[in-house]
């Protein structure tokens, strides 16, 4: 393996340090990243687009800055990639949907601007479930994405490419979005760190909207420090997003090594005693909790009695908002227009019928129904009230603890095709993650062990108080430091897609 190839296995922060010390160039790092993508991605399907030329030009610019002693940040020159739901000026953005095929955004998302302003080199756009609707990446209209730990299994979704690309060491970090668990679930399935920030912490300007009261952008990385570095880069107010918070951004790195001593970790009975929880996942989570106790944390029983209503509330609120957000895809201003339509209404109907896959259609239908005359009070309004109850549960829990801990998902990565015929079974993968979105709270997934039977990664979920990402990161780092770095997946089997 070349020196640059070996660098690809380093955490992001260390690769950045090598660039700072002029022991490596951004060009060599980006070339190795592109090489690894070329080598592996035919079997993984993590990328929807690779922007090689653009990335190499950015790498040369980063190297020139480094030579002048003008590096912009610790990320300057480091190859990363972003979920293809984030607009990238001049680079096609599909949201995983045929209805945006060929769409070239005239502007970039705030988070993309911020990554590039920090000097990070974006090498491509990552695969996802169509419009971020899914838990396995199988709803991508273009191709499935596979789990680097076992290509017969899904990487989780909807940010499947964001997790797979980082786990497979193709890039040092990535951005995803999380509406009901779409960062944390794939992070757990692929053995990487994923952060869903507090609603409003990271601006959503230029993010293709799915469910606007729930969507958040966040980082995926191989270490907690890398995730903290990326989060600090993208967080903070943007006047172009009226839901973005004006609250100052904490320094996520300064307290990172603060340890877990005295930390009060709330254990919701409803999560740990959930009947769907697989024994291998429960075992890994319990071991992580035992580690925390050894580190001086205090485990506190708490209760989130309304979390069992989370899925039901979510599957009314998210589809309702999606049905409204996706009304803009009508074949008029962007995206393919269906030929042969007679009249405006037929243009809408045929363009949408041909452009949307089954999952967006299903959610548009569900949301339209929930918002339609006579049903609004019984469905959407009631779900919004339940959301208040879910949030109150957390507020109550945080009176006696600093973070809430539990599994990210009921089990490890499942096989491709296993749940595609049963949407409800697919939705249940989000049972533990969805409540943080409903309550607008920050959540994080950190690798905490491997399932005894399959050897697949298991993530521990930590949920914190509003805007208290710093405590989540510190707690996750304490576990990571004690356990050592989570291993890379084994080499992929040779040959074509499994």
């Amino acid at each position, binding site marked *: 393996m070349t020196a640059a190839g070996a660098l690809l296995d380093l955490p992001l922060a260390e690769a950045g340090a090598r660039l700072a010390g002029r022991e490596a160039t951004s060009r060599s790092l980006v070339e190795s990243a592109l090489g690894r993508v070329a080598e592996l991605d035919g079997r993984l399907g993590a990328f929807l687009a690779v922007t090689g030329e653009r990335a190499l030009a950015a790498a040369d610019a980063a190297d020139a800055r480094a030579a002048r002693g003008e590096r912009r940040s610790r990320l300057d020159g480091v190859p990363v990639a972003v979920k293809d739901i984030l607009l990238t000026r001049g680079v096609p953005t599909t949201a995983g949907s045929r209805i945006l095929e*060929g*769409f*070239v955004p*005239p*502007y970039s998302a705030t988070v993309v601007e911020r990554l590039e302003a920090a000097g990070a080199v974006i090498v491509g756009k990552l695969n996802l479930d169509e419009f971020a609707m899914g838990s396995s990446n199988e709803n991508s209209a273009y191709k499935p994405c596979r789990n680097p730990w076992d290509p017969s299994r899904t990487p989780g979704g909807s940010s499947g490419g964001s997790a797979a690309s980082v786990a497979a060491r193709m890039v040092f970090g990535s951005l995803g979005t999380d509406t009901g668990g779409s960062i944390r679930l794939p992070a757990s399935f692929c053995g990487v760190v994923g952060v869903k920030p507090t*609603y*409003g912490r990271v601006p959503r300007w230029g993010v293709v909207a799915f469910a606007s*009261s729930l969507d958040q952008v966040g980082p995926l990385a191989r270490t907690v420090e890398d995730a903290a570095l990326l989060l600090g880069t993208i967080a903070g107010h943007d006047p172009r997003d009226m*839901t973005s*918070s004006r609250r100052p951004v904490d320094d996520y790195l300064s307290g990172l090594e603060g340890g877990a001593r005295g930390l009060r970790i709330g254990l919701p009975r409803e999560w740990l005693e959930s009947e769907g929880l697989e024994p291998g996942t429960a075992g890994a989570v319990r071991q992580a909790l035992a580690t925390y106790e050894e580190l001086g944390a205090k485990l506190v029983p708490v209760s989130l009695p309304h979390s069992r*209503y989370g*899925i*039901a*509330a979510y*599957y*009314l609120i998210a589809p309702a908002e999606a049905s409204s957000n996706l*009304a803009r895809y*009508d*074949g*008029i*201003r962007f*995206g393919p*227009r269906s030929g042969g*339509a*007679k*009249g*405006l209404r*037929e*243009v809408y*109907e045929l363009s*949408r*019928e041909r452009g*949307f896959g*089954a999952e967006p*259609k*299903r959610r*548009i*239908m*569900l949301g*339209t*129904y929930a918002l*339609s005359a006579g049903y609004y009070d*019984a*469905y959407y*309004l*009631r*779900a*919004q*009230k339940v*959301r*208040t*109850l879910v*949030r109150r549960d957390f*507020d109550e829990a945080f009176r006696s603890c600093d973070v809430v801990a539990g599994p990210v998902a009921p089990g490890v990565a499942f096989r491709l095709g296993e749940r595609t015929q049963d*949407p*409800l079974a697919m*939705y249940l993968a989000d049972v533990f993650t969805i409540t943080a979105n*409903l309550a607008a709270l920050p959540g994080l997934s950190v690798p905490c062990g491997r399932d005894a039977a399959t050897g697949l990664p298991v993530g521990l979920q930590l949920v914190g108080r*509003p*805007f208290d990402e710093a405590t989540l990161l510190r707690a996750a780092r304490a576990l990571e430091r004690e356990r050592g770095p989570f291993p890379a997946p084994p080499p992929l089997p040779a040959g074509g897609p499994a």
Partner: protein
Amino acid sequence: MALSVEEVRRIAALARLRLSPEEEETFRGQLSAILEHVAVLSELDVSGVEPMTHALAAEGGLAPVLRPDEVRPGLSHEEALANAPARDGTAFQVPRIIE
């Protein structure tokens, strides 16, 4: 909560989707199952509970977000129309609406 095919068609029309007969049948079954699951919410007494209409209400997120009404540069015509499936000069072109 079982939906009828007629209801599925009515919702599709509202959503400007033209479903095939196979899709109508698939969605009828799947949406019925999902609605059956979400019916669990009716167990809860939500009287007197305020709906969470803004995710950041507790953090002061309800403060009005206003900016001065001033002219600022935006997308050019060319940028705004670059993705249009059909255009006419500086306008999006659509099929004739009034016969």
